[in-house]
């Protein structure tokens, strides 16, 4: 308990205290600067899109891994954790090499007029990479425990596959989907290493909020850096709190039926 307090609580309170060292007026001035607002919008917006992509494809991936058998399944299952194990800087330069205009994927997308690297689209790609295991690893145990018989019962009562999914499977899954979404989103908002290489980091366009914190720190502008950090922390915690409340409501409703 003491180790934790020393390591976590004291430093965290330092962030809040320092952010107000220049007074409320200065805090507000920093936080509402157009460049800061643009970076916050980008960080939260790209994270939202990436988390939604992960929910969709994470659902497909975990469904396939739990329900079907196919060659190399164990290997593929193990690979899902790659974004946890691969250092973010390595992921960042690898994705940049792939999606740069002369990269394996970038060269192929370029004739179609799609630029991924050094645009906000590249940020979404990096954040999707980072967030995928959160959704898959949250859904897998729930899918494993889900009774196949319930679906079969639905099918034998004349439900189509789509109906069975919407009425039987989805209601049981959605608290887990929400958790996976929240975890992937939270990780994406704070992500730094994998994004900075592929983003291009142009102010107002492809500069994420964590990068702005780093550049303010490099200029010894601690009041500015902490002010952005406080806004990020408060927004993230508020979102997590809201999702948690939604989840409790969902699981209590699910339990009543």
């Amino acid at each position: 308990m003491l180790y934790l307090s020393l390591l976590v609580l004291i430093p965290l309170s330092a962030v809040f205290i320092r952010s107000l060292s220049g007074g409320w007026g200065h805090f507000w001035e920093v936080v509402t600067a157009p460049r800061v607002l643009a970076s916050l919008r980008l960080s939260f917006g790209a994270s939202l899109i990436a988390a939604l992509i992960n929910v969709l494809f994470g659902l497909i991936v975990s469904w396939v891994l739990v329900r079907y058998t196919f060659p190399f399944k164990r290997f593929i299952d193990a690979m899902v954790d790659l974004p946890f194990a691969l250092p973010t800087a390595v992921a960042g330069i690898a994705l940049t090499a792939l999606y740069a205009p002369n990269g394996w994927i970038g060269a192929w997308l370029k004739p179609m007029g799609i630029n991924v690297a050094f645009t906000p689209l590249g940020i979404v790609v990096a954040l999707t990479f980072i967030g995928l295991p959160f959704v898959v690893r949250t859904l897998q145990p729930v899918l494993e425990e889900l009774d196949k018989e319930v679906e079969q019962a639905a099918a034998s009562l004349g439900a189509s596959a789509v109906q069975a999914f919407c009425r039987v499977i989805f209601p049981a899954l959605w608290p887990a989907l929400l958790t996976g979404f929240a975890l992937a989103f939270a990780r994406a908002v704070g992500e730094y290493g994998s994004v900075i290489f592929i983003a291009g980091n142009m102010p107002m366009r492809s500069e994420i909020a964590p990068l702005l914190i780093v550049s303010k720190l490099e200029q010894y502008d601690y009041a500015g850096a902490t002010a952005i950090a406080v806004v990020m922390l408060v927004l993230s915690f508020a979102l997590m709190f809201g999702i948690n409340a939604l989840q409790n409501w969902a699981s209590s409703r699910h339990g009543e039926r």
Partner: protein
Amino acid sequence: MGRLLLIVTALLFLCLFLVLPLLAVFAQALAKGFGAYFIAISQPMAWAAVKLTLLVAAIAVPLNLIFGVAAAWAVAKFDFRGKSALITLIDLPFAISPVIAGMIFILVFGTHGWFGGFLRAHHIRVVFAVPGIVLATIFVTFPFIARELIPVMQAQGKDDEETALSLGATGWQTFWRVTLPNIRWGLLYGVLLCNARAMGEFGAVSVVSGHIRGVTNTMPLHVEILYNEYNYSAAFAVASLLALLALLTLAGKSILEWRQPELRHAARRSRDRTRRANI
């Protein structure tokens, strides 16, 4: 039909997002041939980075091991006030951006920080030096071991320990002969994940390191420097060592899961249980 479509979609997505980036690392690292690859990874600066990374992990992982066992022990075997607060605190580093994690150490130990004056008076450097890198690494990796151990210890209950104590074993004997053997696989699993993150951490370490070549550059930071100097093949050569570490971690993790299937998703399941209990 729908089944085939789903499998193909899933595999395509995973290839695009996981397999291709991994292949790209090795392809770029070897783009100029094996000779250039070995020259790149045997540079003195690259070696200094490897050594620092190993040193940081060698300090951070054992400390978090001790903390993880203590925290998991407290949470799983005792009831006390503030238990749920402790669980939330353990997870906190996962909820905070690594950049913010690094920044708080600058605020506390930096020149203008809370302990800045004291440290300067005693000629101790924390920020922009190795101690800061170690502290930041400990901070971002401390949930790993505790989170893996809590469900393992909860599942085992306290019967074994109570039996040992009633047969006259001391507290330490009970721990070394009963508790530790019971949790060894979970412990190894947590250490594996903790180590991977400790060696690969970028954001938090980048903020506190000061990027002094050969002195405060860990492997991920060295990759960044080489990359920003457009020395791509050298950057990817060092990155390929980290990618190998990631592959070894995944292999070790799979072997442990195969031996001990209950390790899989253990952390997740226990959290669900706690959440349900809280409602």
